[in-house]
């Protein structure tokens, strides 16, 4: 039995391309994803112009208000960047901004944005900063008694009670700040690849059947039960190997944390059992390797997308989140999130472990039943 499992594992790594897909590719993907999550999704505001002192003030104030600014060469380029989505919006400050302001000529700043909620919100924020920065100039325009510079200086020096805006935030953070982009990327890729490699690895099971290896095994004095157990152990070994490579690889290379080691190990083990069970079903149900490989890819990537292993579940709407929990991925993600975000232990993730165990039992039952049928035919 161990021999069957071992042979399956050796077969996985004998093929050199598998080394790429099992080891190098997941790590590359975690790196790319981790880097792009780390960069954050902050919408960027383009700014054209802003050379004079008054204009420079406006730009500084925008920066200080928390906007991520990008300097853009000219109007056409700004429009191009906004249309293609690289900038959320762009503010165009004309070259004669300073002169017009000091001569009390009204200035209209073109604000290039797409008609979408995020761009409209940015417009409201930018408009607010413009109002605040040009307040002294407006006061000067009201007074008109002296030079522009003098009046602005006087307005700036005037202390008034005004209105204080106090801001606070409440609620609990869905993703704590201590959880890095790499943590999120590694957890989701762990699940995606463990399941995907299990399914594409099911090709080996079909090969075993096609090459007649299984018939020859059946002819030996080993019981069918033991052969099945051996094949199952082989599938589990493949899934676990993939999972462990990602877990340790990401921890060593990117410092990814997995929370309570016992809890993480338990989740990985049970999830590997689910993957292995699915692989048994696949290996028993398809006739050709190509079929299994193609549908394995579809199922592996499809379930990962639905289950929240591509875009975090936190971003899903209510209904989609319910649908997501039809997949084992979503439950495992919940488990890992509990370990990492709430400092959970193996005990607090028992519900997730339980659900995953049910998946594993059902899939294994189905898989062994089908496999027994095709092996003994």
């Amino acid at each position, binding site marked *: 039995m161990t021999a069957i499992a071992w042979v399956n594992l050796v077969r996985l790594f004998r093929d050199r391309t598998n080394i790429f897909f099992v080891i190098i590719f997941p790590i590359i993907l975690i790196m790319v994803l981790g880097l792009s999550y780390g960069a954050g999704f902050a919408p960027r505001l383009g700014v054209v112009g802003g050379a004079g002192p008054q204009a420079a003030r406006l730009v500084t104030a925008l920066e200080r208000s928390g906007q991520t600014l990008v300097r853009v060469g000219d109007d056409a380029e700004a429009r191009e960047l906004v249309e293609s989505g690289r900038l959320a919006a762009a503010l165009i400050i004309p070259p004669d901004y300073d002169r017009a302001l000091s001569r009390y000529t009204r200035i209209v700043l073109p604000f290039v944005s797409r008609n979408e909620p995020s761009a409209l*919100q940015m417009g409201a924020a930018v408009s607010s900063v413009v109002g605040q920065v040009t307040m002294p100039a407006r006061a000067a325009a009201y007074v008109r008694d002296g030079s522009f510079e003098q009046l602005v200086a006087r307005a700036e020096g005037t202390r008034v009670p005004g209105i204080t805006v106090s801001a*606070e935030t409440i609620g609990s953070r869905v993703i704590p700040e201590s959880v890095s982009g790499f943590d999120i990327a590694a957890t989701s890729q762990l699940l995606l690849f463990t399941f995907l490699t299990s399914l594409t690895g099911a090709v080996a099971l079909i090969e075993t059947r096609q090459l007649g290896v299984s018939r020859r095994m059946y002819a030996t004095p080993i019981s069918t039960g033991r052969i099945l157990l051996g094949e199952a152990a082989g599938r589990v070994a493949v899934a676990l190997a993939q999972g462990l490579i990602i877990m340790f690889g990401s921890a060593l290379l990117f410092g990814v944390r997995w929370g309570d080691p016992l809890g993480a190990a338990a989740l990985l083990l049970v999830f590997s059992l689910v993957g292995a069970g699915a692989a048994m079903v696949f290996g028993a149900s398809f006739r050709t390797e190509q079929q299994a490989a193609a549908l394995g890819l579809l199922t592996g990537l499809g379930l990962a997308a639905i289950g929240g292993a591509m875009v975090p579940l936190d971003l899903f709407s209510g209904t989609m989140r319910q649908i997501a929990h039809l997949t084992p991925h979503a439950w495992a993600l919940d488990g890992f999130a509990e370990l990492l975000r709430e400092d959970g232990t193996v005990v607090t993730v028992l519900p997730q472990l339980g659900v995953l165990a049910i998946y594993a039992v059902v899939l294994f039952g189905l898989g062994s039943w089908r496999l027994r049928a095709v092996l003994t035919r």
Partner: protein
Amino acid sequence: MRAMLLITAKDLRQRVRDRSLLLMAILVPFGLAAIFSLVFGDVEDQQAPTFVVADQDRGQIATTFTGQALAPLERRGVLRLKKAGTEQDARTLVERGEAAAAYVIPAGFTRDVLSGRPATLRVIGNVNARIGTFVARSVADAFAAEVRYVQVALAVKGGGSPQEAVAVAAPVTLENLAADRRQLSIGEYLSAGMAVFFLFFTVRFGFSSILDERRDGTLARLLAAPIPRVTIAFGKLLGGIVVGVVSMTVLVVAAWLLLDARWGHPVGVGLLVVAGVLAATGVMAMVATVATTAEQAGNVHGVVAVLLGVLGGVFIPIQQMSGALEVLSLLTPHRWFLEGLADLHGENAPMLATGPTLALLGFATVTTGIALTRLGRMLRT
């Protein structure tokens, strides 16, 4: 010419008989595109944030804030407003995430402002609604600046009425210039990404079927025929191109009909698809010349196609990539294909995506050229 077409036709017959091609070229990419559209379309669906107002003052300044600062923004669709009776109600709505932020206008607010005492307008934001909270704060700041302006203006002038001060127009205002959206929706982006990703697997059979012929021993017979070697190569390449164009057309049309994807002008999209297929065929042909057996070619193809796909932004939209990765992505046909589709997207989009189409044709020329110079190596028996 006839010999070339014969080779192509024979290859195509073989491909059509092998049903797994249908799976990999059409079913899998379309299935994934459908799933991705469902999941990511749901995530992308952004709405204006809801702000709650708990007005405990009900005075003149408070109603100015709600009526003249907030209400116009609601009319323009920037935000949605909700009223709350008490501060506690407002906090609960924010805490539950039903509102992005709350404004609490304390009792006595108007009286304090009018009599020149310090007044406070409170903004309570949900910790997860970062942008919503930021907007709420900005709107409050803008209103505070307006009040401060009146007070400063009157102080500097040493007289006058608030009404006169307010009548002076703001010196600088924003004018919204609507920009087109020349960007694919997430669903469209991923549909197109999957199509171009699997295209590389679809077209690879064309050129590398030379290796199959060698394995099956038919290559020697083909070479013995009185046809130039280049003809054999082009016949093989053409087989891949035909399958590629057909599968891409099916995918593009299916996404349009079934997934509600809106591509640009058919001529531009058609040219882009053909250029993309040529580029993919060229890249895969070039890669195939490295291999000596069909199996080896399959392995190298898999690695190259996956790496180019990841770098080209098939799985992660390019807009989210950071600097170095974005530059690297320019080296992949995937990136240019997706960018071309984005260029063609939108109401005032051009009919042709000239730049990306030419870039793809450049890929095709260079890679096919390299593949042909290494043809001798491929055609050894």
